[in-house]
């Protein structure tokens, strides 16, 4: 039973980790591909001084913080509690 719970939790964590990693790759490589293939858009100005490239670049940095925050929230709220349950169930 304990082993089964652990495997289930491991599976769940892997899915979260994998999906968040894929989200990061999607954001970053989306940005890189826009830079490479749509220079016109990235160079166009939204307001004087702010191009789409600079705005999206700054947003990639912000997205790093958001993804890490999502992960930390999930692990702190759900994962850590489950780990505690499983390791206490052993005793």
């Amino acid at each position: 039973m304990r082993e089964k719970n652990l495997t289930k939790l491991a599976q769940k964590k892997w899915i979260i980790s994998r999906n968040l990693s894929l989200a990061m790759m999607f954001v970053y490589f989306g940005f890189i591909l826009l830079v490479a293939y749509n220079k016109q858009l990235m160079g166009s100005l939204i307001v004087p001084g702010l191009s789409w490239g600079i705005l999206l670049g700054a947003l990639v940095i912000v997205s790093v913080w958001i993804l890490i925050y999502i992960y930390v929230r999930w692990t702190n709220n759900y994962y850590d509690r489950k780990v505690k349950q499983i390791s206490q169930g052993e005793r």
Partner: protein
Amino acid sequence: MNTTIGQFNPVAIVFFLLFIALSLGITYWAANRTKNAAQFYTAGGQITALQNGLALSGDFMSAASFLGIAGLVALNGFDGLIYSIGFLVGWPILMFLVAEPLRNLGTYTFADVVAYRMKQKPVRIASAFGTLAVVSFYLIAQMVGAGNLIKLLFGLDYEIAVLIVGLVIIAYVIFGGMMATTWVQIIKAGLLLFGAVLLAILVLSKFGFNPLNLFAAAANKYGSAVLAPGKQVANPLDAVSLGLSLMFGTAGLPHILMRFYTVPDAKTARKSVMYASWFIGSFYLLTFVLGFGAMTLLSRVDIQKIDKGGNMAAPILAEALGGNVLLGFIAAVSFATILAVVAGLTLSGAASLSHDLWVNVVKDGRADEGEQLQVARYATVALAVFSILLGIVFKGQNVAYMVGLAFAIAASGNFPSLVLSIFWRGLTTKGAVASIVVGTITSLLLIYLSPTIQVDMLNHASAIFPLKNPGLVTIPLSFLVAIVVSLLEKDKISAQKFAEVQQKIHLGNHHY
């Protein structure tokens, strides 16, 4: 424009001596807390999340990120930002896939994790090879950078500068081990962040504290092309390849991975990455301001007159905004930056030599505490001498690409086997070894065949391999080799022990 850069600068020397005195004082204090191998490698494992977050930032933000990116932005505008963003996106990957399992499964090196359910010797030897390859190329970039930087900033001879770095590092690491290294990195990160914030505030004060006014002024001066992608990203595949290396390389850098053993548990490791991502991300946002500030408030011609690559943009900006005192401060911070990174690299290389190769291969894991500590110290001296030699041998070479190369080797040699050993039951000893060896060697080979070496350095008309960074080929190749070789053999022990690995990864040690 008048500048004192390149001349003997007493203010810079005073700031620098203050930093050296403080850090050696800390080393003296740390030496009393470095009595066994665990304390030497991990500072006793009692570093807090905030401390480790700062130390991770200090380990990661090399002179390349501060001086290099500020310079790239100052000369190329938007294109320089692509690097600063790329250096940050590896941190979530490190967090999601590697940081916590590493903490719970290993003790001193990342090879502890890969080798856990494998045959020790082959995996240890391969991991040491991957580690030392990354550390060597990273060290070359740092040492040559240190020599040039100190020559420019303090007016000291190149060889003397390289020698000073080597000797100071020996003092830090031999006597103070991880404890001293950690505190040097914390202080350096604090100084660097303080310096960057101060410079950014001074720049923004000229533009009504609105970054958009600054960017608009840059566009007025040089045309709006500076806010758009330019000629630096001519080849999209090049950009993707570099991006892959930066993204997955961070989670394969031995000196970064080693830092997770300094905290008491996985939760602290997790928190420390969160702090690090805040510090490093904010710092890279500041590079937007510093780079465009240097471009607008100075002239590109003046920046390039002092250093063709633009590496002196931030120091010149400091001098223009805050005179000799600010220049001296920024110069000293830049030097401190290099010292902290070299200390981290030396320690992780020494750990691999002594813990992986000596203790686990030569001595079959049977070495007492005293011997472990002694061998670690010998290895430290050997690596410091090695890095001094590297600095002198590579004098005058263009080594800017070597940090990119170190990331490519880390991403192709170390990262695949590490992540597969954590998540894939089927990984075998041969699969792990083949992945590390193939990933590392093909990275080295393709770098040699790339335009960076063939065209830029050897002046050939064209290069056999078209990409500047090999990541696009070598990272998938390394994963493929690991999987195919693993499927070809049966490694019962490795598969059986996977349950134990999973238990340790998630539950840690505390429940036993």
